[in-house]
């Protein structure tokens, strides 16, 4: 496990699978993102941290094609792309697991895994083929489920998250965006998801950006940490070069500064 490859940050960005350059986003008068630059190295797991309202979800929504940035550009594998929709981003290889997971409770596990890329024969659903593949894929990435025929409504939070991640991974995504995969998850289930992410990292097929809140968990699973504060990236370090203490200090310092500013203006 110690032999895990540490992605190296090339100065010219040639090792980057995804680059986000000078991205800004306004909602009317509100500036959600302000000249954000972010890069994702091939095969790495990037932790995106920051307080509520810092703009993390907005940034994810822009990278996945759900929202269009006010300014800036996105470069995927050296090519500038303009994302028109989530579907479009997905077809280019950027897949997203949203906080709400986008799972359909009323459908089976395998229908969910193949949602919007169903296999058909003579325009009828090829359930047998989807079922078999879903089972194989879940086994391969080590997700344990009672049955792929189960309705998703009957599964636990961790299992649901795992299905959503598995769905994204098995769509041959190059870049996987995980929006707070550990939110509202018990210790055991959170550990299961972290293991899943580590497994994916080991397999090295996909590069991952994860929004997280828990610094300890972030340092455990991520190669690199970016900190987003009031719409700007203020911190970019390899996980091994930083600590929970340092991250805490930065955020608390920022909080004190904001507080002091508010008192001054009051």
């Amino acid at each position, binding site marked *: 496990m110690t032999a895990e490859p540490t992605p190296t940050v090339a100065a010219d960005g040639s090792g980057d699978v995804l680059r986000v350059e000078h991205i800004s986003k306004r909602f009317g008068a509100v500036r959600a993102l302000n000249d954000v630059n972010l890069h994702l190295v091939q095969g790495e797991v990037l932790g995106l941290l920051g307080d509520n309202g810092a703009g993390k979800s907005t940034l994810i929504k822009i990278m996945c094609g*759900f929202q269009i940035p006010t300014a800036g550009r996105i470069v995927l594998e050296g090519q500038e792309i303009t994302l028109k*929709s*989530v*579907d479009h981003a*997905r077809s280019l290889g950027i897949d*997203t697991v*949203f906080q*709400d*997971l*986008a*799972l*359909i*409770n*009323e*459908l089976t596990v395998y*229908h969910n895994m193949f*949602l*919007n890329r*169903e296999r*058909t024969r003579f*325009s*009828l*659903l090829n*359930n047998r083929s989807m079922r078999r593949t879903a089972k194989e894929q879940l086994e391969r990435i080590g997700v344990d489920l009672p049955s792929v025929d189960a309705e998703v409504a009957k599964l636990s939070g961790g299992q649901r998250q795992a299905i959503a991640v598995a769905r994204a991974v098995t769509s041959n995504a190059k870049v996987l965006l995980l929006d707070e995969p550990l939110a509202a998850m018990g210790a055991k289930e959170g550990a299961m998801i972290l293991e899943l992410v580590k497994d994916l990292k080991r397999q090295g097929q996909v590069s991952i950006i994860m929004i997280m809140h828990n610094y300890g968990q972030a340092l455990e699973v991520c190669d690199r940490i970016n900190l987003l504060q009031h719409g700007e990236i203020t911190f970019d370090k390899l996980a091994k070069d930083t600590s929970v203490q340092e991250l805490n200090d930065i955020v608390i310092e920022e909080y004190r500064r904001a507080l002091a500013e508010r008192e001054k203006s009051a």
Partner: protein
Amino acid sequence: MSEITERSPQAVSPPGGPPAKRVPGPLRSALNLLARQREATVFVVAVVLLLYFGIKYNSTFVSQTNLANLLSETGSPIMIIAIGEVFLLICGEIDLSVGFVYTFAPFLMHYLIDFYHVPVVPAIIISLLFGLLVGAANGFLTVTMGLPSFITTLGTGFILLGLTLTTSHAYPATISASAVGIGRWIGAAPWSQFIWAVALTAIFYVVLTRTKWGLYTIATGGNQLGARESGIKTGRIKYGNFMLCATLGALVGLQNAFYTNTIDPSAGGFQPMFYAVTAAVIGGTAMLGGQGTILGAFLGSIVLATLLNGLNVAGISANPLDIILGAAILLAMIVNVRLARLRAAGRN
């Protein structure tokens, strides 16, 4: 209850084991089937009702004329409209206007043939396409303008009613002689409506359970945001289902006109729509979206038609009939809900 709650593993175990592991008898297999299949509960209700009326009033009830009346004349309009309502209910919408498409479509055919000298077949096709148009309007108001479909379709329904009454001066019309021949295929022949109903039920059963359209309809009603995030065009799904429902309404309107050989401004309206929604819900379709079954709606239609027809055969006069019908619907639904609860218990 315990018969159902302890399921499969015991049921398939060999005989001679401990007393808890019983041999699967026919009753037990039946209960197991009941436990698995959503449509099984309404099937039981339908069979019980048919047996009741069949045994009690056998010669009159089981006669071919009466069965044709029950299944074709009374049941089929409910079955066909229910197909459209099931798709709409599953994707989280409802169509209250469908009965007024039913009312107007045959008038449109009549105007086209008799006033504009359009040949019969194109006139029928245009009347069906008119259903598509109304469905598209319902879709536009609901999906694009963001009105709740309950209000949208109430509004378009009244507009259609007004349109019918204004253009017809509230007088019935007769089917023009040139249309009588093809009319037999559409609905005038004794069993033709039922054949249409069975064929459409079979087709849309497959559409709902085995095609992307069906899957996306469920996804749209089950989790609209999630479906959209997965790239499903939920608006398009809703448009399509509104158009399906209204077109089926137009078809039923034409069928009824041909069957009765008259185009009546008081035909259709809210009643067939409410019967269809009732049949869908009795059959196991959720009013809140995400779940529903075409087969269940078909069986639910049979339940309703059996009640309507059976109470008639039983000689209950017109005025108190609705009291008994209402009570019977509630009773059928209570039985259904209880059985569904047993089914849920059986599954866990």
